[in-house]
């Protein structure tokens, strides 16, 4: 653990499996001696847009492979859409669209022909509506004009779009998108975001991984932050924001009195910069201990002349960096 308490978004395992699109317990994957995924408990509520965040090499793709039954778990259990994985894979997968670590296609077939081949592989996909569904999926990702072009002539961004189109071939309950904005230009990134929003509005749960918080922060309702195979924080976005340290800053000439009042409330005040007559007293405080308005009232009641009063949470970006580290080192 590199910091911060893990926050559980949902209580109780039994009730959670009904309301959860994805639920894992102690999920682990070992490669040789390395724990690529180390006992993670994911809880993705149905209907959420869930950001799965973490730096390169932290184990996001490996987790997604286990969710889809591509790789077996070394330990732990998975429930997808209420069903056990891998036991019920065949029943669950038709309702799941996925993009896993980059798109992959037959270079000598056209985009539409590739989708046709993948859709044929799904026994449950009705062939009567196939052309129509392929057309709609290509249209959704803005590839209609290149549908007949061979994939080897596609740019990286076009392949990425085709990969997303594949995930959208059928109506899905759950979409699992592994770094969907890789290789896309800013315009493409915006399009993916609005696509995810519209899918979520239609009731699809979207599980989207990214190593860039900024790419998904605007669209997510929930997130989990992963670092070196472990989940270091999880919950709604506002939970995550609040879980960052919140700092209280009081500006007053009565520095001593303010310290006294704050100490009596159970905080640990520190004296900051002196600016003319006014001094600064700062303190970190746990979210649920005392509310800011109680503190303000106590200060005023204690005869402290309040000239400034500020409660400031760290940004999610700061929190993300604090949790995962900022260096260029790829996690091993």
């Amino acid at each position, binding site marked *: 653990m590199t910091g911060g308490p893990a926050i559980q978004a949902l209580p109780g395992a039994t009730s959670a499996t009904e309301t959860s699109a994805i639920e894992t317990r102690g999920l682990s994957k070992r490669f040789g001696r390395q724990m690529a995924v180390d006992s993670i408990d994911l809880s993705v509520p149905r209907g959420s847009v869930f950001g799965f965040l973490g730096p390169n090499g932290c184990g996001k793709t490996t987790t997604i492979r286990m969710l889809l039954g591509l790789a077996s778990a070394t330990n732990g259990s998975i429930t997808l859409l209420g069903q056990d994985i891998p036991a019920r894979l065949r029943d669950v*997968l038709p309702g799941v669209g996925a993009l896993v670590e980059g798109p992959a296609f037959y270079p000598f077939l056209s985009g539409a022909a590739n989708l046709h081949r993948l859709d044929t592989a*799904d*026994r449950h996909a009705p062939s009567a509506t196939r052309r129509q569904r392929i057309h709609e999926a290509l249209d959704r990702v803005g590839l209609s004009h290149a549908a007949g072009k061979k994939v080897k002539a596609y740019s990286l961004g076009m392949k990425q779009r085709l990969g997303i189109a594949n995930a959208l071939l059928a109506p899905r309950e759950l979409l699992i998108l592994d770094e969907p904005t890789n290789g896309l230009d800013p315009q493409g990134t915006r399009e993916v975001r609005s696509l995810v929003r519209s899918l979520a509005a239609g009731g699809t749960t979207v599980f989207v991984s990214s190593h860039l918080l900024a790419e998904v922060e605007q669209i997510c309702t929930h997130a989990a932050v992963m670092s070196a195979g472990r989940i270091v924080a999880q919950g709604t976005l506002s939970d995550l924001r609040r879980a960052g340290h919140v700092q209280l800053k009081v500006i007053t000439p009565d520095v001593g009195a303010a310290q006294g009042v704050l100490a009596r409330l159970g905080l640990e005040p520190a004296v900051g910069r002196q600016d003319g007559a006014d001094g600064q007293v700062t303190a970190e405080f746990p979210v649920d201990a005392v509310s800011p308005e109680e503190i303000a009232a106590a200060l005023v009641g204690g005869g402290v002349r309040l000239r400034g009063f500020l409660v400031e949470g760290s940004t999610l970006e700061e929190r993300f960096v604090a949790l995962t580290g900022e260096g260029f080192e790829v996690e091993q």
Partner: protein
Amino acid sequence: MLVALAGIPVLIALAVRLTSRVPSGRGPAFLDRIAENGLFAAVTGLLVSIPLFLPLTVGVVAGDTIAGEAGLGTLKYLLAAPAGRVRLLLAKYVGAAVFCLSAVLAVALSGMAIGALLFPVRPVTLLSGDTVSVGEAMVRVLLIAGYITVSLLGMAAVGLFLSTLTDVPVGAMAATIVVAIVSQVLDNLPQLEWLHPWLLSHYWLGFADLLRQPPSFDNFASNAWLQLGYIAVFGALAYGRFTTKDVLS
């Protein structure tokens, strides 16, 4: 590949046509008989394709089945579709088997066509000395094609298994072809007589009995049982490997 295979009897027939006289007893069996009866272009084409050309193409196709998808990265999307691992494996094997049949038919049909084009086609004198009509002779050629197709099915199963072991298709293709060639080499070592009946390629050239009157199907049956054994063993290995494999490409 099918075009290349179809080209083999064409090459042979053209060579025979252009060199007017083939000294009998040299070159592949039946070579000297093409000029007198075009149907032998098909038989000769099949005969020269068996040791190398057919195993080569079957090795490429069978080795590519799973490893090719893994190498491209499309395997994960097929499985996520979901194609179902067992179903995908079966579909891939059926595809390889269909290729075996098409490959052999490509040689046989192009051989009959080019033979008919360049040489006279007349009733055929069989190895037993009996003479059969052109129609009957063509049926015999197709029987031989069926025999050779069956011969290749075991090898296709070996290739399917090797293909589940790697994400590098070229590796699986090469390994499959090596298996076929090693099997033929071993089959030629008299010291290993006890092993011969179990070798993949043991009956590959044993279709001469189909050119007697009446045709003898003993070899056909032994060959079919042997190939079925290979299909069962390597099919089971491929199943065991592929259904438990982590798809990480």
